[in-house]
């Protein structure tokens, strides 16, 4: 019997008769129709993908982010999609380009190709200051606190953008200056209280113990009121107990400050413990991306970390 392909139009309607966007539902319907003699042969495939958390808006989106230093492609075609409130990990062997990604996302390096968006706003090519004002803050792999300022003052520097007060009002309109200083001081104390650092507020930053310095860096970054917080190896140099405490702190910060977190980390216990999704970089390229536990078990990821 002769079998010829026929064209069909597929449309799925909800119970009110409105068309449904199947992609949005994580579903895909493929219909193939054949004309056989006087009748039809229909081949209908319905694919259902695991439900995605589409209810949460995308905070950070990067498309094809690349940077080249001379002939070296330090990061090559990085795509990222991080949703609101997510704890997202960026991992990879040493030299994979993780910190370079952070440096692009904070405006220190200008990407050679590609763009990135914060809540839909294109921030590619903006200065670090502008990017910080738009809502990306970070900590550093090697702690970079303002050592000769006190713990409180470090947080107040972070608040600089948040509390309105100009040079002129500092110099000439003392009452207004005093008021904004007072507001900044109170807010800084509040952040320190939340972070459990308030009792150290008058210490010089350099005199804090190591773990507390890491916490203070997070507090200072939070003071700039970010939508997205980038943590560069927060657990570096910490013992297992401190790492455990740090994990609690990071989760707590996300809830308390309603912030989305992207972190670079080598400590697999921390990564698998708190990150929901991961991107693995290797030689500047994405090796794997997706759900943390699924990604960590992929053979190519294991191989990149442990060798052949």
């Amino acid at each position, binding site marked *: 019997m002769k079998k010829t392909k026929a064209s069909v139009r597929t449309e799925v309607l909800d119970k009110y008769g409105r068309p449904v966007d199947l992609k949005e539902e994580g579903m895909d319907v493929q219909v193939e129709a054949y004309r056989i003699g006087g009748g039809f042969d229909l081949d209908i495939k319905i694919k259902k993908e695991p439900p995605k958390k589409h209810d949460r808006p995308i905070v950070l989106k990067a498309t094809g982010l690349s940077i080249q230093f001379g002939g070296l492609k330090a990061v090559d075609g990085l795509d990222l999609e991080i949703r609101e409130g997510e704890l997202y990990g960026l991992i990879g062997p040493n030299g994979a380009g993780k910190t370079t990604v952070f440096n692009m996302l904070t405006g*220190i390096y200008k990407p050679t190709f590609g763009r990135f968006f914060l809540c839909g706003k294109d921030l590619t090519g903006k200065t*670090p*200051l502008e990017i910080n004002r738009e809502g990306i803050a970070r900590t550093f792999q090697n702690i970079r606190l303002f050592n000769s300022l006190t713990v409180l003052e470090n947080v107040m520097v972070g608040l600089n953008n948040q509390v309105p007060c100009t040079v002129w009002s*500092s110099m000439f309109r003392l009452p207004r200056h005093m008021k904004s200083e007072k507001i900044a001081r109170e807010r800084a104390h509040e952040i320190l209280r939340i972070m459990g650092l308030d009792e150290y507020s008058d210490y010089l930053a350099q005199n804090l113990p190591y773990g507390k310095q890491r916490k203070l860096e997070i507090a200072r970054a939070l003071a700039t009121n970010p939508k997205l917080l980038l943590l560069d190896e927060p657990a570096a140099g910490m013992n297992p107990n401190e790492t455990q405490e740090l994990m609690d702190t990071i989760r707590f910060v996300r809830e308390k400050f309603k912030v989305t977190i992207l972190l670079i980390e080598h400590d697999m216990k921390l990564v698998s413990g708190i990150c929901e999704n991961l991107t693995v970089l290797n030689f500047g390229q994405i090796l794997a991306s997706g759900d943390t536990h699924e990604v960590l078990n992929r053979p190519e990821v294991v191989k990149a970390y442990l060798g052949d």
Partner: protein
Amino acid sequence: MSEIISTIINGLSQGGVYALIALGYTMVYGIAKMLNFAHGDIIMVGSYAAFVVVGMMSSSPFLAIFIAVVVCTALGILVERLAYRPLRGAPSLSVLITAIGVSYLLQSLAQIIFGATPVMVPMFDFKFVDIGGISIKIQSLITLAVCAVVIVLLLFVIKKTKVGRAMVAVSEDRGAAQLMGVNVNRTIAITFAIGSALAALAGIFSLFVSPVTSPTFGALPGIKAFVAAVIGGIGSIPGAAIGGIILGVVEQFALSVPFLSPYADAIVFSILIVVLLVRPTGILGKKQREKV
């Protein structure tokens, strides 16, 4: 005895002037990480601004002080914006040479506009006061008082205000400060503005002592104040004040002894050599620890 006390007071007042200039050097060095060798010439521009007001327009000396401060502040911001900001991130030698270039530019401009001949800038007619049998020039007391107030005010601004914290943050780690939302360019511009305003005051006080200015008016005080900043530990604000005072007092004592007075400048500069031999980072300078 009375002579010694009046020499001390003159020294303190001259030291205050050096301190005002040294503060500009040290703040710019600490925050923008550059040596602004055009700083002395800002003083000169301030003195000519005063000359235009009192010498050419025969207006009030108070107006002259105000105009000098405004002109110098604006000039400081302008020089930073046009000459130094484009070089942010350039090797420090390039910036240093640019600063020397700006210095010559300002001197030459002054020479073109006002000529090379020194001009009179009559400010106030100061009298002597008699305090417990010691006659002291009033201008010394005024200078001393104003310098003290300005230095205290500056320390307050740096320790207690948002701008001051931003300055410390930029001086410690420019990159981190920027990423924490500190406007580095603006902070550096403010530093230049403050330094230049202080230089204008220093220029006015120098005119109190000798009411003559010329295109090279700022050169020697500029160099001496730089020495004061290095003696005190460059980058340190109290250091600049201490260095200035030491220099001023030593200079006045050298000038008051007849057989030493021709060597006053030599003595002043030799303090630098001694201090650098004993404490290479200056009196209050931080020791640089090499990381291994």
